[in-house]
């Protein structure tokens, strides 16, 4: 679905990617994690055809994104971190934007908007940032685009809306769709994504499915000093020491995405060695 080979990209003289390669398949929700300024948004914009690679190949659904052909744009929907919606009534937005997406489902849009507690007869001009974002997410989902790209989608959402967001997203996935969610708020993606891709300084530091992570790593609280010492990563907390260790007993533990992220950033090669062994 997405095939990125040897991507080189730079902003003027500041290089962002130097030979990044990545393949994303339909039927998955990918979590693209990384610090601010590591190239997450740049990668999404390259996929959406808003930025063009300096070198290398980006292919999405068989299209070259940079050509921005209407058939491509109908199938790829980007929810950017900085987004814009015109100051028009919600119904006008649907009436005049939806026809550009042939598979747009108005009923589903109204369902999502209602689930997000947005009045259907409301006007975007009077909505808060969070409400507008929920409208945009609902629109993107209802567009039935095969590729949904979301850049920090939970920024500006309240606690209830974040929970609603996870619920809606999980229900949305099917075999034809690929959803990529970029965020640095890793907690928001727990129980939602099925593949973790960590990007740092323009490189893929870690790229594994949640299933594989569960089989290879164990996340738990430990009070045993030896166990903490031998762990791949540990950090003290009020409840004891949160650790990541090799999963030797085959029992799957609950993935702590934040802990995994820190472990990869701090102790990447050691954690990676578990997957390559």
């Amino acid at each position, binding site marked *: 679905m997405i095939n990125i080979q040897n991507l080189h990209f730079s902003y003027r003289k500041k290089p962002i990617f130097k030979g990044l390669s990545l393949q994303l398949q339909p039927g998955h929700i990918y979590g693209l994690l990384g610090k601010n300024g590591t190239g997450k948004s740049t990668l999404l*914009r390259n996929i*959406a*055809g*808003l*930025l*063009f690679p300096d070198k290398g190949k980006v292919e999405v659904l068989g299209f070259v994104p940079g050509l*921005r*052909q*209407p*058939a491509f*744009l*109908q199938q*790829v*929907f*980007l929810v*950017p971190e*900085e*987004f*814009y*919606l*015109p100051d*028009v009534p919600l119904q*006008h937005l649907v*009436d*005049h*934007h939806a*026809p*550009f*997406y042939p598979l747009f489902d108005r009923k589903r849009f109204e369902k999502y908007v209602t689930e997000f507690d947005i009045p259907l007869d409301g006007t975007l001009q009077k909505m808060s940032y969070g409400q507008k974002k929920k409208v945009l997410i609902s629109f993107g989902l209802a567009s039935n685009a095969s590729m949904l790209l979301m850049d920090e989608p939970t920024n500006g959402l309240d606690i209830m809306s974040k929970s609603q967001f996870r619920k809606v997203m999980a229900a949305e996935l099917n075999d034809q769709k690929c959803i990529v969610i970029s965020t640095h708020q890793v907690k928001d993606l727990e129980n939602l994504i099925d593949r973790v891709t960590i990007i740092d300084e323009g490189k893929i530091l870690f790229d594994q499915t949640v299933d594989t992570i569960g089989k290879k790593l164990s996340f738990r609280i430990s009070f045993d000093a030896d166990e903490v010492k031998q762990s791949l990563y540990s950090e003290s907390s009020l409840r004891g020491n949160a650790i990541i260790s090799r999963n030797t007993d085959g029992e799957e533990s609950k993935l702590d995405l934040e802990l995994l992220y820190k472990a990869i950033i701090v102790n990447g090669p050691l954690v990676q060695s578990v997957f390559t062994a």
Partner: protein
Amino acid sequence: MNQSFDFGRWWLLVKKHWYENQRKYTLSLVAIAGLLLAWFTFIMVLNPYEPIDPGMQFGTYYFGLFIVGCLFASLLFADLSSTSKGINYLSMPASHLEKLLCALLYSVVVFFVVYSAIFYLVELPMIKISNAIAHTHWSKLMYKSGNFHEAEVINVFVMPNRPAGVPNIFFYFLMTYFAIQAAFILGSVYFRKFNFIKTVISLILACAFLAFLVGQLFHSLMPSGNYYHGITSYSFFTNDDYENGKIVQLPEWIDGVLKLFIMYTFAPIFWVTTYFRLKEKEI
């Protein structure tokens, strides 16, 4: 589905543009009408003895057309100056050609028609009022004697009382406007910030360069003399004989082709350049 141009998709874009901008456009039109009204009133107050003459009508129409038309053109792709709006614009499932043609429809066709309509809508009653005021003042001044000539509403596209053989300069003005406006449309895509000012500076630099090219470079290559009746005939002097110059005349069709090129091709060249710039725009 055609990926370059589909009439249905283009029409959707045209409708969407109108619904999103109708309030802004309506207010702008009211503002233009208000400014014209204020200007004509100012002229009448300044000189109540004379009605608004054709020169003033012509000047007002073209000054407004150039200023407002170029300002509007420079705002045409203003969305591309903002990251959020630019993403929304470029991600809209329509081709670059459809987006450009939609922008051209509003800036070149709709603006021109509506501006002209508003100009006449304001001008017609203002000329009548101006005639009435001028007549009253004239009568008082001349003690109801002398000849008072009422002003008439002129056709701003046709030069009045044009002698046979003299070209219609008003039409040249119109063509120049479309060419300059097209440059501002390109500027609105090309420059991310301060595109109006940057386009003005670019045009001045381009004109200065052309003047240098013709005035200095070409002049130094040509023998001593001057262009004579256009740029395809050149009058020059030989052996310091300043009384008996010779004229070199290129074939007449070259003159025609050059005129056509200068009048009709600048605007399309800028539009085509805008299309390619839009295609390569990154946000």
